[in-house]
């Protein structure tokens, strides 16, 4: 029987556009938004894959300006969270200045 809460998978690629990169404040904002949703979120650069809801792991990514990150969401609200995160990174620039 098909569950209305079926697992949807959504992916996107984002680029870090703010001057100081993914330091603590942006990482915290990212994690805060990610935790508002049910989906499991994984974030990866070319080397590692981390849990997007863990501040510990996100801060270890050390993504600097220009880094491209893949975000994958798995869950019923996958589309929503991908959209929110993309907006945070590429449009709002975490509320920080571009270089």
């Amino acid at each position: 029987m098909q569950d209305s809460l079926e697992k949807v998978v959504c992916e996107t690629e984002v680029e870090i556009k703010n001057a100081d990169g993914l330091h603590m404040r942006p990482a915290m904002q990212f994690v805060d938004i990610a935790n508002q949703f049910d989906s499991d979120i994984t974030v990866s650069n070319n080397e590692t894959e981390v849990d997007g809801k863990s501040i510990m792991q996100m801060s270890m990514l050390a993504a600097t300006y220009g880094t491209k990150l893949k975000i994958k969401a798995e869950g019923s609200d996958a589309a929503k969270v991908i959209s929110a995160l993309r907006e945070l990174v590429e449009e709002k620039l975490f509320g920080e200045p571009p270089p």
Partner: protein
Amino acid sequence: MEIKKGIAASPGISIAKALIIDSEDYRIPRRSIKSSQRTIESQRVRNAFRDAICELTELEAAHGKAGRRKIKDIFAVHLRFLHDRSLRKKITDLVHSESVTAEYAVSTALREIAAHFSKEEDTYISERAADIYDIERRLLIQLLGKKREDVANLTEEVTIVARELSPIQTAEFNRKFVKGIASDAGGRTSHAAIVARSLGIPAVVALEDLTESVSGGDTVVIDGNRGIVVVNPDDQTIRQYQEYSKEFTELEHKLDAIREEPAVTRDGVKITLLGNIEFHDEAEAVLQKGGEGIGLYRTEYLYLNRQNEPTEEDHYQAYAETVSVLQDRPVVIRTLDLGADKYTQRKRFAPEPNPFLGLRSIRFCLQNLMMFKTQLRAILRASVLGDVKIMFPLITNLQEMMQAKMILRDVMEDLDEESIAYNKDIQIGIMIETPSSALTAFSLARDADFFSIGTNDLTQYTLAVDRGNELVSTLYSSADPAVLRLIRTVIQDAHKAQIDISVCGEMASEPEYIMLLLGMGIRTLSLTAPMLPEIKQIIRSVTMEDCNNVARKVLGMNSERQISNYLRNAVGKILPEAF
């Protein structure tokens, strides 16, 4: 069963369960746990996180309200970390997979993460390591905090095991329950060792890595005579040590019996035996063990176990009580000898790079006259109550001694003006404990009423060895020919000037040195109370002629090892039970 060798710091045997503590008296629990305890331990981890989050949330709010945004932000970061479920999971996973305590898991996991951060090139990120250590500490405080009182509220016999112990920690141990002490760090003459000896608690130090091999609750044997520690002894070893313990106690009782006997050599030479004390309430013990007075009252402890400087009244009370116990027997009070340690370092803006050679002891006093005069006033006031003598430590040259004497005269004049009584003829002596004062003793002798040789520091400065540094403690030896020549010079100069001379360093309490010291001309020894009976026994068993022979032979030898062996053989023939 594991046998570890360290340095014997305080004689005696004890067998008790280990209690491991750190420098703040926090009890560090075992590393390993039983499988059945894993669930409880994981819950402890979760509770610690919950409590730390609570604490931090309050702090964050408080700082936010007070407008301290930067601090509030830091707490916000820490809170995020504490809320991070993958972090908590990492730790509880460790508890389960390796059956370890919550504290161990927290420490290990967080340090691993911190190490990861430190490696990053970006300094912003590498600085996050500091945040991780902060979080570790916060969690550990939650886990350990409630157990802090344990050392103060012991209910069973324990062996204290620590990386290092401060003299204050050691002094506060309840002798009823603390049966033995073992530490990774320290040397035979470190202050903590001295305190352990005064309290009569067997202790072994400089074990280097004992804390890594012992878990709380392990049975530990302390052999403070031979400097051996046995962890989880097998039955045979336990029986063996119980035997040794019995023998040792019997020897003690035998020696106690000679308490009333005079300290006279077989050919009739009288030796004066005095006691070294750190606390005024040890004076009683000195008399009980047959001491005839106090040759060294170390006044540092008046300054150490408190927040503020002791007042003149604090000093006076301690001195007056000591003198009242000793009545008309001599009491030599040494002025503050602190330095190269927390007391003087804490007061500085920048810690001295080489405190051992820095502003310590009498130098510190001469630059802190108010504090110095407070102590001098109290000593002078107490001098009317008995036979009080004053002694200045670490005098390195004539000028220093003259300065100190001048300050003392100032204080005397103050007291005269205030019509406060004191002994105007109080004897003023100095400690000879540096190569410079030893080599110029003839000149210092003209203006000092007496000398006391501080063999600990004299040995350290002459051999350039830090007695508290476990990496080089074996280089420290008062049997070194250089040290012995200096001691002989000092004794000769004192005799020429006809002033009293004594030895108050640890050498005076070590059986193998007694014949040598006597043979070199020493007639007064001041040592720790527990050793008085044994030393008296040696004195009563030798002739001065033998001692003179020993001294002559030894002073012709060139190697410390040769001298040590010779001395040990010599005394072994007289008092075999000592070894």
